[in-house]
C-alpha cells in the first residue's frame, strides 16, 4: 500500500516549499502572539471603551441640558401664570380698611407663592405621568424635574423675622432657598424671582398683562439659560449622583480613577451644557424664523421642531445608560482581544492563508501535476500500484500538514510561555485546540484539493477548482468575520454574516473553544469526515481513470 520510494520523492519535491511556508507561518504566528501580547491590545480596548463612554456621557449631558432648559422655561411660565392668578384672586378680596393691610398683603403674597409652588408640583407630576403613569411624588425623576424649576425660581426663604415689620419685606434682600447651591459653586445668586416694585406697578396696570409681557418672557428665558446649566453641572457633580454614575459604570469595568480621568468636573459639565444650549437656541431660532407665524399650525410646528432638535429628552441618565450602548460596553468589557486576534483572526483566517497556498500547490503537484506533465509514468511503470501511489501521496499531504501544524503548535506554546497566561488570558488547551482546528480545516480543504487533483488530468483545472474553492472559503470567512458575533456590535456588518454559511471554515468554532463549550467537537468531526470523503472519492477516481501517460 505504501511506497517508501514515492514518499521520499514527494518529500524531496515538496520539502523546500514546505519548509519555507512552515517557517513563515510560525514566524507570523510568533509575531502576532508576541506583539499583541505585550499589552498594547488592552490599551486600545480601553481607549475604544473610553471614547464610547465619554461620547455617551456627553450626549446625555446635552440632552439633559435641553430637557432642563425646556422644563424650567415651561415650569416658570406655568408658575408665573399660576402666581398671577392666585395673587389677583387674593388681592381682590383685599379690604383697604384693614389695619394690618401690609401684613395681609404679605400673607396674600406668601400664600399665592406657596399655592403656585404646589400647583407647579402638580403640573410637573402630571407631565411626567403622561409619559409613564407609574411616576409618583417620590420618584427620582419627579424630584429632579421639579428641583430644576425650583432651583431656577429660587423662592425667598421668608421667615417670621421678615414678617415682623409693617412694611412689605424687600424681596431682593431676602435669602433665596437655594442660595447656598449657587454660592457653593461660586456662581452669582440670581436676582429675586419677583421684584416687588415691578409687581406693585404691575398690580396697577394689570398682573396678567405683566406676566404675559415679552419683557417677562425674556426674563424667564434668560433665567432658564443661566440656571439650567448651573443646575445640571451642580446636580451631576453632586456626590450622590456621581456615586450612582460610578456604580453604573462599574458594571462595565470602568473604575472611578478611569472615570476621573475623563474630567467631568463642574466646570467641564457646565461648559458642555452651555455650549449645547447656545447651539440649540440658535438653531431653534433659525428654524422657527423660517415658519410663518400666521399659519394655523404654527404652535404645533414649533413644538415639533423643539422635539426634533432636543431629541428624546425624557430619559433619565441616573437610572441607566441607553440599552444599546450598555450592551456594547458590556460586550467590550467581556471581549478578550487577545483571544480574538489569536483565535479568530490568526488561526481562523490569516494563519490559514499560507498553509492553504502550500496545500493547493502540494496537492496539485502530488497527482494532477505529475499526470499532466507525464512524470507519473515513471512511477507507474516501476510497477508501483495506483492504489499505493494515491495512498502514499495522500499520506504525504496529510503528514506534511500535520507536521506543519505541530510546528505551529510548538511555536504557539513557546510564545504563550513568553507572553504569560495572565496577559494572554487563554489557556494552553485552547491554543492547542486552535492548532487542531486549523489543521482540520486544512485537512478538509486538502481533501477537496486532493479530490480535484485526482479527478482532473490537467493541473490547471485541478488548481482552478480545488484552489479556487479553498481560497473562496478563506475569503468568505474573512468577510464573514465582520458580520460574526465576535465583532463588537458597533463595528459589525450583519449582512456579511451570510458568508459564514458559505464557508467550511465556519466549522472551526474558535468561540466555542475559548468559551469552553463542547460545540466545537462535532464541528471538528464534520471537518474530518468531509476531508476523508474528499480523499476517498479522489483515490477511487484515480485508481479507475484513464491516465494520459
Amino acid at each position, binding site marked *: 500500500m505504501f511506497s517508501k520510494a514515492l514518499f*521520499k*520523492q514527494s518529500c*524531496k519535491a515538496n520539502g523546500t516549499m514546505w519548509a519555507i511556508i512552515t517557517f513563515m507561518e510560525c514566524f507570523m504566528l510568533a509575531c502576532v502572539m508576541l506583539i499583541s501580547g505585550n499589552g498594547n491590545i488592552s490599551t486600545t480596548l480601553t481607549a475604544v471603551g473610553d471614547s464610547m463612554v465619554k461620547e455617551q456621557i456627553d450626549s446625555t449631558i446635552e440632552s439633559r441640558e435641553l430637557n432642563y432648559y425646556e422644563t424650567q422655561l415651561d415650569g416658570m411660565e406655568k408658575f408665573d401664570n399660576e402666581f398671577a392668578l392666585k395673587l389677583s384672586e387674593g388681592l381682590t378680596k383685599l379690604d383697604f380698611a384693614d389695619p394690618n393691610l401690609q401684613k395681609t398683603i404679605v400673607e396674600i403674597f406668601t400664600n399665592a407663592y406657596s399655592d403656585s409652588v404646589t400647583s407647579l408640583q402638580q403640573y410637573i407630576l402630571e407631565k411626567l405621568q403622561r409619559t409613564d403613569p407609574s411616576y409618583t411624588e417620590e420618584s427620582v425623576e419627579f424630584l429632579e424635574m421639579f428641583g430644576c424649576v425650583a432651583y431656577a425660581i429660587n423662592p425667598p426663604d421668608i421667615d417670621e423675622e421678615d414678617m415682623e415689620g409693617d412694611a412689605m419685606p424687600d424681596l431682593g434682600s431676602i435669602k433665596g432657598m437655594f442660595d447656598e447651591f449657587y454660592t457653593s459653586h461660586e456662581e452669582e445668586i440670581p436676582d429675586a424671582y419677583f421684584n416687588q416694585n415691578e409687581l406693585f406697578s404691575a398690580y396697577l396696570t394689570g398682573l396678567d398683562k405683566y406676566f404675559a409681557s415679552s419683557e417677562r418672557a425674556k426674563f424667564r428665558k434668560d433665567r432658564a439659560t443661566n440656571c439650567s446649566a448651573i443646575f445640571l453641572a451642580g446636580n451631576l457633580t453632586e456626590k450622590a449622583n456621581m456615586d450612582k454614575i460610578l456604580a453604573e459604570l462599574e458594571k462595565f469595568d470602568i473604575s472611578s480613577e478611569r472615570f476621573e480621568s475623563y474630567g467631568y468636573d463642574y466646570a467641564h459639565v457646565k461648559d458642555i451644557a452651555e455650549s449645547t444650549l447656545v447651539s440649540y437656541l440658535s438653531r431653534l431660532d433659525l428654524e422657527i424664523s423660517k415658519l410663518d407665524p400666521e399659519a394655523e399650525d404654527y404652535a404645533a410646528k414649533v413644538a415639533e421642531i423643539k422635539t426634533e432638535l432636543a431629541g428624546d429628552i425624557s430619559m433619565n441618565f441616573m437610572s441607566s445608560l441607553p440599552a444599546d450602548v450598555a450592551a456594547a460596553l458590556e460586550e467590550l468589557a467581556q471581549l478578550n482581544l487577545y483571544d480574538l486576534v489569536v483565535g479568530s483572526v490568526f488561526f481562523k483566517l490569516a494563519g490559514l492563508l499560507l498553509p492553504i497556498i502550500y496545500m493547493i500547490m502540494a496537492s496539485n503537484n502530488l497527482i494532477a501535476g505529475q499526470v499532466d*506533465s*507525464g512524470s507519473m509514468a*515513471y512511477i507507474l*511503470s516501476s*510497477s508501483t500500484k495506483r492504489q499505493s501511489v494515491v495512498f502514499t501521496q495522500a499520506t504525504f499531504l496529510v503528514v506534511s500538514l500535520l507536521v506543519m501544524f505541530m510546528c505551529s503548535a510548538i511555536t504557539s506554546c513557546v510564545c504563550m510561555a513568553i507572553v504569560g497566561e495572565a496577559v494572554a488570558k487563554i489557556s494552553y488547551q485552547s491554543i492547542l485546540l486552535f492548532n487542531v482546528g486549523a489543521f482540520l480545516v486544512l485537512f478538509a480543504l486538502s481533501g477537496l484539493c486532493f479530490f480535484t487533483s485526482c479527478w482532473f488530468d490537467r493541473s490547471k483545472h485541478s488548481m482552478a477548482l480545488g484552489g479556487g474553492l479553498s481560497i473562496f472559503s478563506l475569503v468568505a470567512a474573512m468577510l464573514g468575520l465582520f458580520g460574526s458575533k465576535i465583532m463588537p456590535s458597533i463595528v459589525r456588518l450583519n449582512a456579511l454574516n451570510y458568508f459564514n454559511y458559505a464557508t467550511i471554515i465556519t466549522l472551526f468554532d474558535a468561540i466555542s473553544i475559548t468559551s469552553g463549550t463542547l460545540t466545537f467537537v462535532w464541528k471538528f468531526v464534520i471537518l474530518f469526515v468531509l476531508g476523508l470523503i474528499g480523499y476517498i472519492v479522489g483515490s477511487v477516481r484515480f485508481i479507475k481513470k484513464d491516465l494520459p501517460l
Partner: protein
Amino acid sequence: MSLIETNGLTKDYGYGRGIFDIDLNIEQGEMVGFVGTNGSGKTTTIRSMLGFIKPTSGTAKVNGLTSWEHSSEILKNIGYVPGEIAFPDLKTGINFLKSQAEFLGVTDLSYAKELIERLQLDPRANLKRMSKGMKQKTALVAALMADLPIIILDEPTTGLDPLMRVTFLDILKEEHSKGKTIFISSHLYEELETTCDRVALIDSGHIVDIADMHALRARPEKEFKIEFLTADDYSRFLNEKFTVIRTQEQYNQATICVNIGETGRLLETLKNYNVKFISEIPYTLERHFKDILMRQGESKNVQ
C-alpha cells in the same frame, strides 16, 4: 502465445479519434516497430498495452495478463520510455536515476553507469535545464537500467542529433540481441527499417499493414536507374528485354525492374552501352507503406 498481444483493442475517444480493432502480436525476443503520423494512435496503443487507459473494447495482454486489470504486474517486466519526457520534480539526473532505481528495486547500478558512459550523458546536470536529447538519454537509462525483458519506447529518437540517434539505436539493437522484446514507435521509417524485425503501420487508429522487414530486405526484384550518354544508346536499350517501369527521355534515363537472377544478364548487356551511371533504387519501408496507403486510397475512392 505471444508475449504482447492485442485483440480487437479499441479506445474510442469519439469524433473518429482513438484506436480501432488493433490486432498486434509481439513474440518473445522480437523487435517490433510502430509507425504512423502524429495523432494516428501510436501512443494510445502503447498506453493501453501498459494499462494506463482502459480499452473501450478488446484486450491488450502482456505475458497472458490483461493490461488494465494487472497493470502493476505486467509493468514489472516492462521498461518504458514515455513519449513526453517529463521528470518528477527532482533536482538532478542522478537524483532521478537513484530514485527510479529505488522504485524499481535496482541495487546494482553498474549497468546504468555503463549506459551513461556510452550515451555520453552527464547525469549531474539539473533536470530542468537538460536539453531534449539529454532528457531522452536519461529516460532511456531509467528504462533500461533494471534490465527488464520488455522495452517499450514511444518515439524515443525525436530530439536526438543524427549521431546520437545511431548510438541510441545501437544500444537498442544490443538489447535486442540479448533476447529482449522491444516495441518502438516512431514517425521516422528509416530508423525502424534497419533495426526492426517487423514494422506495423497505423493510420487513423487502424493497423494498415505489418511489414516483415526480413522479407522486405530479401525482395527478389530490384530496381535500377540507368542513364546513357547518348540518345542512341538510350533508345537502343529500350529494345532490350527488360521490364522498364519508368523512362525520362530528356535525361536519357530508364528505370528497370530485374529479378536477382537477371542481374548478370543486365551487366552483360550494359557492356555494349556507354553508361553514364547506374544506381539501385532501394525498396524502402516508406515506399512500401506509401504504396499500400495509395492502394487503399484508390480502393476507397472506387467505393
